[in-house]
């Protein structure tokens, strides 16, 4: 049994320690917000927050997270910060197909919690591991800029 905190609750996983966190989240815990895009850490669609840092959950073996804290987009969606980011993304139509968005929002969260007032360059660096094949990124960058303004004091 692998014990960790998932979206605020202590859980035990029956997974094989070599399994990817991504697969366990989706299959054992039915949390399908994290998407499988590449399985090699190249696309960021599977991003989750592990011990307060953004990671690609496809690159994490279950055996390495004993005692860790994991937050997925499902847990994050219950926060005030999520509301601000979600509205900011919607306001500028920063979402098209949506496949990258759970990862993109968590990357936005980690960026803003480290740097509440990022400039454009810092935003682009913050989301540089999250690929979006629809939007061309400009709307996403704008959404994050707006969220930083709208959510003043939250981050």
């Amino acid at each position, binding site marked *: 049994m692998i014990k960790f905190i998932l979206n605020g609750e202590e859980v035990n996983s029956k997974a*094989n*320690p*070599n*399994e*990817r966190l991504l697969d366990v989240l989706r299959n054992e815990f039915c949390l399908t917000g994290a998407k499988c895009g590449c*399985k*090699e*850490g*190249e696309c*960021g669609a599977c*991003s989750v927050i*592990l011990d307060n*840092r*953004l*990671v*690609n959950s*496809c*690159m*994490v*073996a279950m*055996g*390495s997270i*004993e*005692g860790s804290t994991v937050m997925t987009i499902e847990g994050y969606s219950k926060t005030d910060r999520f509301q601000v980011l979600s509205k900011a993304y919607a306001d500028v139509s920063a979402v098209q197909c949506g496949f990258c968005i759970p990862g993109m929002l968590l*990357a936005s969260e*980690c*960026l803003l919690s480290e740097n509440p007032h990022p400039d454009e360059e810092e935003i682009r*660096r*913050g989301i*540089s*591991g*999250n690929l979006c094949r629809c939007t061309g990124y400009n709307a996403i960058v704008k959404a994050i800029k707006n969220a930083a303004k709208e959510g003043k004091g939250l981050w």
Partner: protein
Amino acid sequence: MVNSYFTTSLDEALEIRNTKPVIPYAGGTDLMIKADDQASYLFLNKIPELKQIREDEEYIRIGACATYSEVLHHRLTPQILKDAIIELAAPAIRNLGTVGGNVCNGSPKGDSALIFFVTDALLRLGSSRGEHTLPIKEFYLGRKKLALQNDELLLEILIPKKGLEHYYYKKIGARNALAISRVSFAGILNVEEGRIKNCATAFGAVSDVVVRRPDIDQMMIGKTIDEAKDTKKEYLAAYDETIVPIRGRVSAEYRKSVCMNLLQDFLETNGI
């Protein structure tokens, strides 16, 4: 049946390494690309001794399992290493990947390994038999071949504190983020009282092992900048002969010309 091991004790990890046929797992960012259900991993990512970053009189000592992000944000980390980490992958990978993993992966494309080569870093290896320290150049025996015994773990990377100020670093990849180096180059050149005190260069991603040739760089040491200019042709010719790139995703010819251009640019930046 899978036998993977998790421990937070270094002694226990060394004991497991000594008695079981395990694959050391540091950050997982290389291993998980080919995740193997049947592999026997030894998870090292939560062993405090392997995550420390500290200093002694001569060296900055980085624990093998310190992540790139931890190294990047540490006050002791030399700027040349920070520059390489900033250009490495993307934040989410830097939060998992470790410097020790980069070294033990054995790839000549490792972006932090290149910096450990150019700074002539030392590696501290440990096993339940004891420990020893060796220069990184002696650790790499050939393509993916390391001087790491089956019962050993890389514990620490020791970077000399002095003489790292005047450096040059460039990574050539296909794009900015998440790019594997096509060629990477680092050079250090310090002048003291008008004479070149040390000159070190390293070329990554061009052959089986990072190219680090102190015997060639020696040509520049002790010379004034004007004398170095006279030696430049001979120096470049020596590297021209030495660098025989492998063909990968890009042609060997391309890698070769980029190497030579970067080396020339490094010299020109230093007024040579």
